Structure formats: C-alpha cells, structure tokens
C-alpha cells in the first residue's frame, strides 16, 4: 500500500500469480479497488486465524501472568495442543480468560471468606468444545500468624456451583460443591480449582449461569482476607487487576484433527 507509506515486497513470480488469479493490476486500479483487495486479503487471513472480524479492543488490558507463562512454554515446545501441567486439556488449542463481573450483588456478601463470582461466558463461540476450566485465585501470605501451629495455618477453599440462587426469606440456594483445596495461609502461591462441571452447565444454558460461590474456611481466613476474592475499598484498580479472580476455559476450536493412531504409525513407517 504505497499511499499508507508502507511497502509490500512481492516476489515477481508471486505477483504474476496474484495478478492473474484475482484480475487485479497493480498501478492501474483506483484506490477503492485496492482497498477492497486489501480488505479481502485481511478477511482471508482473519478467517485462517478463526476470527470472523478484526477485534478492536478498547483501552489497556492486563495479561494474566499464568497466560504469559503458558504462551512462552507453548512457543518453546512448538505443538498446537495446550500443554499445561495439572489439567487434562490434551486436545485444547485455545485458552480464554474471564474476570469476575462486578455488580450490585457483590455488596450482599459482607463476609470476608464467602463471595460469589460471576463470569460472562456467552461470547465463547458455539463451535468450540470445552476441554477444561479452572478458577484461579491469588492469595496474600499471612506471615504474622500468631499461632504457628500447622492446625491454625491451614485452611480450605471450597467452590460451589450455584445451581439455583436463593430468595431472601423464601428459599435457600441450591449449591453443588465442585472442588476444594487445602491451603497454607503462610503461602501466597496462586491456587487453581477445577470448575469444569459448572462451565459445562453454563455453556449448555447461559440462563443457568448464576456464578460460583467461593468459601474459605480456617482460623486465619475467618478473620482476615487471605484469598483475594474482592477488591478492597482503598485498592487501586491497577493493583486489583493483577490479583483478581480469573476463570480460564480451555477449548478446542475444531480447526484441526488430532493425529490418530493410524497416522502416527504411518508417519513412523515413512
């Protein structure tokens, strides 16, 4: 595109092939035609990448540290399947991240160790097959725990799928425990919980997505916020995006077939 100040170097053979196949002549067509050709090429490339149109994100975005690490690992090994230790997502080739959607309902949860997390998964393309889903929660190490006994340091994180929300004074919520993990409150490592059953249910019916209820038990967790579930009143937005709860979905977009046993044998023979 000479007008835009960029140069596209095309091999003479390629240019000839391109020229004859698309009946496009460089230098003779007007700008409108050229823009159409460029738009067509961009659409073809986006289609190749599995996108219907070019995304136009608004503003700055925070890249979760775990995704950045996974990206580096994937580039190093050079295979199309997501290879993340600890989850069974063998044929997944896409990871999507979903932050908690803040709403007025958040204020109803006053307790430090109990909070509802909500995620909007409606934008996951219908053609993608869910392979795994995990909830990532960051923690603050409680180094000044007075009682150093193991019993007091320990706690447990429980995640429930809210099958049906409760109505105050009328009915209790229906909760389904889907995962739990023991935590040491003196450590600050991020914990990942398997929430695959809940996400499967939400994808089947978006109306049944009432979120996840996270409950942290333990002596320390009852009095102080060890697992980061909500933004503190005085916490800056930029600090919060680093430690906020995040849901990751591992899906297969169906763009390629996994190597079958026959193909592997065939390849070995060859």
């Amino acid at each position, binding site marked *: 595109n000479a007008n835009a100040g*960029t140069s596209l170097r095309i091999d003479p053979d390629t240019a000839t092939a391109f020229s004859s196949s698309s009946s496009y002549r460089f230098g003779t067509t007007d700008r409108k035609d050229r823009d159409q050709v460029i738009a067509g090429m*961009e659409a073809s490339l986006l289609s190749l*990448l*599995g996108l219907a149109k*070019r*995304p*136009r*994100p*608004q*503003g700055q*975005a*925070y*890249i*979760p540290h775990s*995704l*950045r690490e*996974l*990206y580096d690992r*994937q*580039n190093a090994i*050079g*295979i*199309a*399947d*997501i290879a993340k230790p600890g989850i069974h997502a063998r044929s997944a*080739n*896409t*990871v*999507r*991240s*979903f*932050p908690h959607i803040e709403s007025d309902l958040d204020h109803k949860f006053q307790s430090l160790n109990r909070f509802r997390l909500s995620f909007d998964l409606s*934008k996951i393309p219908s053609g993608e097959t869910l392979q795994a889903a995990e909830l990532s929660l960051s923690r603050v190490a409680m180094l000044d725990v007075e009682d150093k006994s193991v019993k007091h340091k320990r706690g447990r994180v429980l995640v429930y799928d809210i099958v049906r929300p409760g109505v105050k004074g009328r009915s209790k919520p229906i909760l389904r425990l889907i995962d739990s993990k023991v935590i040491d409150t003196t450590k600050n490592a991020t914990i990942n919980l398997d929430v695959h059953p809940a996400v499967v249910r939400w994808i089947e019916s978006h109306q049944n997505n009432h979120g996840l209820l996270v409950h942290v038990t333990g002596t320390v967790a009852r009095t102080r916020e060890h697992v980061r579930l909500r933004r503190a009143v005085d916490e800056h937005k930029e600090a919060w995006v680093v430690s906020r709860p995040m849901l990751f979905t591992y899906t297969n*977009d169906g*763009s*390629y077939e996994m190597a079958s046993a026959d193909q592997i044998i065939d390849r070995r023979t060859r």
Partner: protein
Amino acid sequence: RAALRKNRRKDGRENCRRHPLYVDFADVGWNDWIVAPPGYDAFYCHGDCPFPLADHLNSTNHAIVQTLVYSTKPSMVPKACCVPTALSSISMLYLDEENKVVLKNYQDMAVLGCGCR
C-alpha cells in the same frame, strides 16, 4: 554467503531450501490486538529439485521416480516440487472485542523443513 554458494548449482539455480519470510504484525496494523508475538517467522520453500535427488532434500520414492522420468523426457512429467515437509505451530496472545485475553495455538504455521515431493 558460504551457505548460499553451497546451495547454488553450477548453472546458477538454487537447490530447494528454506527461505526467510517474516510477517510483522505492526506492518499489517494488527499490533493493537495481537499482544505477542510481535510477528512471526513463516519461512517458505523455494528452489530447484535436481536429478539425482540428494538425501537432504527429504524426497519420497515417488519424487525420485518423477525426477528420473523428467530427466529422461521433460515433456512427459514436470519436475518434483520444492514444498514444506515439516511445519510447526505458533502461539498467539491476543485481545478480543471485550478486552479479554485469549491464547491460541495455530497448527502448521511455520516451515521447519523443505523437500522435493
């Protein structure tokens, strides 16, 4: 330069090999939604498949036969083609319409090796 000389034949034609092809996402204006990588090394295969086919040209039995027939009667069959014989995947980190971060792996995006087929 030494590598190029080695690949070039006496008649000036170059043997089948991998050539660099870098797609810079900033050049195509995609750097606002693709977080990483800044571009990618796609590579391409180009060159001549001469008779006899050397081992490093990763040729198949069929390509050897085709080249043999071509060497005796060029009008009968075309030469074997210089094509990618091994491809690798690339990973991309990008932002979708709602600023959500997506990591996606794409199969067969970069050429690892070329050969005569």
